[in-house]
């Protein structure tokens, strides 16, 4: 073991592992588009002290400027420390997710403020006992004992105190100088985001994000459930890392807002059911097996010390109710933010992800399900798949029958992100490189297609030792993902007893960044007018913020969760049939996609 100190944080690293591994362990974020393959040259770190044993690798010499190497800049994936080192992560290699998170969570108008404050003018008082007596008499006995000593001088000098209330009930007393805040917390399996609400300004003023530290114990939810089931110790470990991560994240956010964790009055969190349960310390065993029942469905209201949040012992922690094992409080927040139940026309919302959560509302009835789409939309299980960071092909189109593409940051391509893959397939369908069955059409691909059948891959870019291609298997992965999502929505439409939906909302950053036209062409969405398919951004985050700030939202939330009828897709007899029929581009039944089907150049018909 060697000790790697990253910006003050000490990480134990096994010999033979690289710095990228250490950074991942530390929960700090670094951009690493190629995933540590030594191709992209993006995971730049600065070594604190010169380590002569650790000379730059040939890859570093090629990708980095000599000057930079001299100054101690190295690639995290190329440095395998032999002894203790200390490093820092320069600004340019920090992953820029925060802007993205903030950009897509919208802050709605507060209809009825839930967090309020008032100023109380004190009569002449001479000591703290007088103060406590007045607070006890005019506000509450409980709060009269909670005035912090450090506040006393300011209060005495001003002759005024500030009374902070949540839902009309006084919850804190402070000097006029203090700023109290509240937090909306979105615990995703991949990323955790906190939004800071300033009560005086009545608005979200700041946000912070970090990788969910549980990721080191399992990338997907099932693996973490399994990890937690193995022993009490492992369960506690998962709980501890996420709680410590959240405490840390809030400490940073509070300090950015000019106060401290002890000024947090309320934290409302949302997340999928597994993240929700693990954060609260609930048993997740039953989430790992049929029929995936949650331990608790009701709304949660506890205080920070109940779950050992550091510095947040007295903050009130709340979570909205949830619906099912794979339809969590995050979807409930999405339903709130989109006000789906009030839709006058049949409207569906899809939160696109590894588990696509789908809800459909029609005339006051609300159905929802979760569909295991797999990680293809996020670039997972795709040969050159990657997240939407620099070097990812994000747009593909064609000019004169030739595919053209654009990368994030306009740099040399390293791989494709989900929206790039969708564009690639859609455009290939238009110009006949891929047929409606999802198979490459050799005669139209020319020399760009290498290999045959299952081994075929289309070269999008190749230069020297770098290549970006899409394999036949990658297209199959996309077919499986979009078919699972489409079949899920179809089952809901069918259960609702309607023929089609009139409007589709796409929640999550992915929906905001993809080409909706191309998504519809490949059959991810039903064929409804393009202007009826609308991205709504990070609606789960938006809903969590509403629950912090608005009484009106808080009153609605229980009713929303109670209204929701959950459909377990794997128990639906029709699911397999619909899934198989949804594999084609756009669909086996072209009557469902008259317009898109016409855009697919080579249509395969079977059985004739």
């Amino acid at each position, binding site marked *: 073991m060697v000790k790697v100190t990253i910006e003050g944080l000490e990480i134990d690293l096994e010999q033979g592992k690289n710095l990228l591994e250490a950074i991942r362990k530390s929960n700090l974020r670094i951009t690493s588009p190629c995933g540590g393959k030594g191709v992209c040259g993006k995971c730049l770190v600065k070594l604190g002290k010169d380590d002569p044993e650790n000379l730059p690798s040939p890859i570093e010499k090629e990708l980095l400027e000599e000057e930079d190497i001299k100054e101690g800049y190295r690639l995290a994936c190329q440095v395998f420390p032999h002894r203790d080192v200390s490093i820092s992560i320069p600004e340019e290699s920090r992953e820029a997710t925060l802007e993205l998170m903030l950009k897509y969570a919208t802050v709605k108008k507060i209809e009825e403020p839930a967090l309020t404050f008032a100023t109380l003018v004190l009569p002449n008082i001479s000591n703290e006992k007088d103060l406590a007596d007045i607070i006890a008499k005019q506000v509450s006995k409980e709060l009269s004992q909670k005035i912090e000593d450090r506040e006393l001088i300011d209060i005495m000098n001003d002759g005024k105190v500030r009374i902070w209330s949540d839902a009309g009930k006084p919850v804190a007393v402070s000097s006029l100088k203090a700023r109290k805040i509240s937090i909306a917390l979105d615990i995703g399996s991949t990323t955790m985001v906190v939004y800071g609400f300033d009560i005086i300004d009545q608005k979200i003023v700041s946000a912070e994000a970090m990788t969910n530290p549980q990721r080191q114990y399992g990338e997907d939810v099932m693996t973490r459930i*399994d990890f937690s089931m193995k022993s009490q110790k492992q369960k506690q470990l998962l709980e501890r890392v996420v709680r410590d991560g959240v405490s840390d994240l809030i400490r940073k956010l509070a300090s950015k807002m000019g106060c401290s964790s002890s000024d947090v009055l309320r934290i409302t969190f949302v997340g999928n059911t597994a993240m929700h349960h693990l954060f609260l310390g609930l048993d997740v065993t039953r989430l790992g097996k049929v029929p995936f029942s949650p331990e608790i469905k009701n709304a949660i209201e506890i205080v920070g010390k109940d779950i050992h949040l550091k510095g947040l012992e007295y903050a009130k922690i709340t979570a909205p109710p949830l619906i099912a094992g794979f339809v969590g409080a995050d979807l409930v927040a999405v339903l709130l933010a989109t006000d789906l139940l009030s839709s006058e026309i049949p409207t569906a919302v899809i939160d696109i992800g590894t588990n696509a959560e789908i809800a459909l509302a029609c005339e006051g009835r609300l159905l929802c399900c979760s569909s295991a789409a797999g990680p293809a939309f996020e670039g997972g299980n795709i040969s050159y798949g990657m997240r939407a960071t620099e070097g990812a092909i994000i747009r593909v189109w064609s000019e004169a029958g030739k595919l053209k593409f654009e990368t994030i940051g306009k740099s040399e391509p390293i791989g494709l992100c989900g929206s790039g893959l969708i564009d690639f397939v859609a455009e290939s369908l238009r110009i006949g490189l891929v047929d409606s069955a999802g198979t490459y059409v050799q005669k139209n691909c020319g020399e760009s297609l290498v290999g045959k*059948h*299952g081994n075929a891959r289309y070269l999008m870019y190749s230069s020297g030792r770098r290549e970006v291609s899409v394999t036949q298997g990658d297209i199959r992965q996309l077919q499986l993902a979009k078919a699972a999502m489409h079949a899920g929505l179809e089952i809901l439409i069918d259960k609702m007893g309607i023929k089609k939906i009139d409007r589709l909302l796409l929640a999550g950053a992915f929906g905001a960044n993809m080409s909706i036209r191309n998504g519809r062409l490949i059959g991810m969405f039903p064929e409804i007018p393009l202007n009826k398919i609308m991205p709504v951004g990070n609606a789960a985050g938006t809903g969590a913020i509403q629950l912090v700030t608005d009484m009106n939202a808080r009153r609605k939330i229980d009713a929303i969760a109670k209204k929701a009828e959950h459909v377990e897709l794997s128990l639906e007899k029709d699911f397999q049939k619909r899934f*198989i029929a949804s594999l084609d581009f756009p669909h086996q039944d072209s009557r469902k996609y008259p317009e898109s089907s016409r855009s697919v150049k080579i249509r395969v018909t079977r059985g004739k």
Partner: protein
Amino acid sequence: MDDVIERLKNAVINYDIDCVKDIAQEVLEKGIDPIKAIEQGLGEGIKTVGKRFGDGEIFLPELIMGAETMKTAMAVLEPAIPAGSPGRTTAGKVLIGTVLDDIHEIGKNLVATLLSANGFEVVDLGVNVPNEKFIQSVKDAKPNIVALSALMTTTMPHMAEVVKQVSASQGAKTMIGGAPVTEDFAKKIGASGYSGDASGAVTKAKELVKK
């Protein structure tokens, strides 16, 4: 007469579900042995489809349509097999199911389809199958192979339990598969075989029967 069998084979290869019934009727009208028609016509046809699927030339919808075309013809031919005839020669008998607490069936169905296509007799126990049911069915059906599927990490321990008991009783060979299952896991729990995909499962099953 071989022309009819050839047409039967081609109907499966071309997923011609509309015509295959008529061709099967023709087989019976011409007095051709239904077992021969099944083995040399339908069997060969579905083998071609299975191979194309394994090679990645075609995808799931084609495979399923090929299998359904075959089933349609089987519904005509099978009842015509004379009672007491020696029956079809099979590649072996496979008991298949998704383990307890797990209800995912598409992958399991796919393997079952491909195994049937390759001449295996398949007994499908369905999904969410209790460990004891596997054990009891091994005793009752006496298969060559028990094939277990799991789609969730959390249900994989049931595989270990069934494999352990089946191996102890030496009742049958065992093979496992499913998205979270790895070759390492298969080795660790002592399963006789593993495959990462459906067509690989057929190859593995053939291997295990020979052993």
